[in-house]
């Protein structure tokens, strides 16, 4: 694939300027911070509560913003303009994703700070959070490619946000509804499983399985997103 740093940087800067002037989308980045503050005030300092805020940051910021950025490009026909320029699939997706990745990193770091989460193994958690960000960006890309406008994007992203943010909470119902056990394999649940394991004595497999699961979700979602993008290139 033909990748150019100049083109990636150009798309990144364009997205930064567009995002900073689009208050309808950029103010959404504040929502997880408000939620984190509210949770912190409740005094419930548990790992699952911390990760409810963190997973919400991923859904609301990462998936929603990426989805809206792509949906707006489609709505205004600018994605077609990019596709007709020398920018390759890699340039466009990396340029857009890099911007959302940086916004996500800042918001997730601030969320962790506000809720007061102090992981026992910061290195492993940081890797798992970065891999999760990559997955949620892919998810946002996929949702954006399926929509035709920002209005549609705001609706299509809601169930996705609900499933991935609150999936781990559904596990509480798994004793009465065994089918809900599937939620255990969501990347958001695996992130929680990993974080909980790190707070006690853990084995290598306790770390590898959640991380491998998140990587598998990312890979599959990116492959599907790439395939859909290529299909959208032609009418």
């Amino acid at each position, binding site marked *: 694939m*033909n990748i*150019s740093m*100049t*083109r990636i*940087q*150009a*798309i990144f*800067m*364009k997205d930064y*300027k*567009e995002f900073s*002037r*689009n208050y309808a989308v950029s103010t959404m980045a504040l929502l997880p911070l408000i939620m984190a503050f509210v949770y912190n005030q409740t005094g419930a300092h548990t790992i699952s509560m911390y990760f409810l805020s963190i997973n919400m940051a991923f859904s609301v910021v990462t998936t929603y913003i990426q989805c809206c950025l792509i949906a707006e490009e489609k709505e*205004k*026909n*600018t994605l*077609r*303009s*990019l596709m*007709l*320029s*020398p*920018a*390759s699939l890699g*340039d466009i997706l990396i340029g857009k994703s890099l911007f959302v990745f940086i916004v996500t990193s800042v918001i997730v770091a601030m969320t962790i700070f506000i809720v007061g989460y102090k992981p026992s193994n910061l290195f492993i958690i940081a890797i798992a959070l970065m891999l999760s960000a990559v997955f949620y960006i892919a998810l946002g890309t996929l949702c954006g490619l399926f929509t035709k406008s920002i209005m549609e994007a705001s609706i299509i992203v809601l169930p996705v946000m609900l499933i991935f943010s609150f999936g781990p909470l559904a596990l509480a119902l798994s004793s009465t509804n065994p089918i809900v056990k599937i939620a255990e394999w969501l990347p958001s649940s695996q992130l929680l499983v990993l974080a909980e394991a790190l707070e006690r004595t853990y084995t290598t497999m306790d770390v590898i399985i959640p991380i491998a699961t998140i990587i598998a979700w990312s890979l599959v979602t990116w492959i599907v997103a790439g395939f859909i993008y290529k299909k959208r*290139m*032609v*009418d």
Partner: protein
Amino acid sequence: MNTVIDVQHLKKTFNKEAALKDVSFTIQKGEIFGFLGPSGSGKTTTIKILTAQTEKTAGDVLLFGRPANEMKQSNNRKRFGILTDNSGLYTRLSIEENLLLFSNLYQLPKSAVKEALDFVNLYGERKKKISQLSKGMMQRVTLARAIMHKPELLFLDEPTSALDPVNTQHIYNGLRKLNEMGTTIFLTTHDMSEAEILCDRVAFLHKGKIRAIGSPKDLKKEFGDDSITVELKNGACEVIQTGEQDAEKLFNWMQSNEVSRIYTNEPTLGNIFMQITGSDLV
């Protein structure tokens, strides 16, 4: 190799409905080729196939001697520029920011932005946001973007549809200048006078088929009837043939100083189109 576009027996169907039926034409390097027809005749579909935005159903389509499908490749996209009716500009960014983005995507020097803005007469307005522009100004920004990288081949889909006469003239002059520098231009329009002013050759597309192709001059000769109209000072209008038979009549009117105006009855491209298709242009 001088053939820039070579289309043979091109067919395109959408949901079993034929948009293009056996379309064939070639365009040589340095030509301004007009693809004329009413809305819905298949002009935009042809551009989309040529620029690899739509797959053809059947036929051969070559650009620069390579299958049109290869125009998806990054390096090949630098060889053409495109202006469509759907601008695809970033409305929250300024004119300059929009062009700077594309100059970076094409990896051009910053001076290319100024050159392109001068070309469309918008350098003074460069700080304005796209959302504040009129449709005509947006059209000019899109044109600046299309020509910024000095493409070998330029696709223009209704380039002056939203422009006033002064800016239309400015764009015509610019396109001629580009063409003199070697850019081949593929122009679709339903404005027959535009085609007459700009094009070396035109093709009439109607209901997915090419009905006639040639230079405007040759088409007028082919479809004209060699008659001239003489307006006399008494208000009468006489149509006479340019042969020997009516020469004496004309001579007598001129001798007796009765002639007010003489003009040829050369058909316009619009007349020819209607003659061929029996349709009005939309």
